[in-house]
C-alpha cells in the first residue's frame, strides 16, 4: 500500500524537478554572455574581453544620456567604467579610426550598449537588443 502511494508521488516530483531543471537550463542557455555575435568572421564578436564582470546599471545608462556626442571619451568612461569587451577596430569615416566598446545591461544581459569613440572623442552609442 505504502509502496503504491510512493510510486504515485515520485513521478510528480520528477516532473516538477525536471521542469525546474529545464527552466534553469533554458535561462542559462539564453544568458550565455560572451556570444555577442555568433559569426566568427563577423565584426560583432568581442575581440578582447576587458572586464568580464562589467554590467551596466540603469543609473549609468541614464547618466550616459546626459553626455553630448563629441564630448571627451574620458567623461563617458568615468560613467560607464571598463567595458565588458572591445569590438574590432573600424574606420567608418576617412581619417578617423574608431574604437567600439560593449556593455551588457545589468537588468537585461541580452541587451548590450555599444559605445563608439573616435580617438579621444565620444561619437555616440547604440543599444543592441537581441
Amino acid at each position, binding site marked *: 500500500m505504502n509502496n503504491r502511494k510512493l510510486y504515485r508521488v515520485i513521478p510528480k516530483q520528477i516532473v516538477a524537478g525536471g521542469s525546474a531543471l529545464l527552466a534553469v537550463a533554458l535561462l542559462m542557455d539564453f544568458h550565455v554572455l560572451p556570444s555577442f555575435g555568433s559569426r566568427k568572421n563577423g565584426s560583432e564578436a568581442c575581440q578582447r574581453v576587458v572586464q568580464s564582470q562589467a554590467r551596466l546599471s540603469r543609473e549609468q545608462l541614464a547618466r550616459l544620456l546626459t553626455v553630448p556626442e563629441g564630448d571627451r571619451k574620458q567623461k563617458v568612461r568615468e560613467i560607464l567604467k571598463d567595458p565588458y569587451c572591445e569590438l574590432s577596430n573600424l574606420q567608418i*569615416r576617412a581619417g578617423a579610426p*574608431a574604437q567600439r566598446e560593449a556593455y551588457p545591461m545589468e537588468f537585461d544581459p541580452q541587451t548590450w550598449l*555599444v559605445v563608439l569613440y573616435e580617438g579621444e572623442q565620444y561619437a555616440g*552609442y547604440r543599444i543592441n537588443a537581441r
Partner: protein
Amino acid sequence: MALLLAVLLLPLGCSQPVPEPPITLKLYQSWELQPGDTIAGRRVLGGLGDISIALEGNNVYAPFRGKTQRDRGNCLIFSSPEVPAYLFRLCGLDNPRFGTVNQGDALGRGRSLQFAALRKQPNGTWAIVEPAKEILERTLTPL
C-alpha cells in the same frame, strides 16, 4: 535549445515585413537638392557628398548586422548597433531590401550606387562625411 527555437522561429523571420513609413533625416548640410527630388522633371539621383559607384548590376551587401529603411527619396538607409553614430544612405538600388539584415546579406542591385555616410551631430542632425574605404569595401563585396 536556442538553435531549436531559432529554427522554429525561422519561418516568421522570412515572412513579408510590414512596410514602414519612410524616415525623414534632418541633414546638417541644407543643400537645396537631395536624392529623390525632382528638377526640371528629372529625378535627382545623388548630391554633394554622395560617392557614385558603377555597380553595373551587381549587388551591395550589408556591411554589418542591422536594419534597412527607406527615406523619402526612396533610398535605403542602413543602421546598425555596431556602428553607433553613423548611418549609410544607399541610393540607386532597383529592388532594395528593407527590414532586419545580417552582415553580408544582399541589399539590392542596380546600375549605379550613390553612397553617403552620415554621422550624427550633437544637435541631432546628420552630417554627410567622407566614408572610409573599408566601409565601401564591406558594402561592395560579399562575405
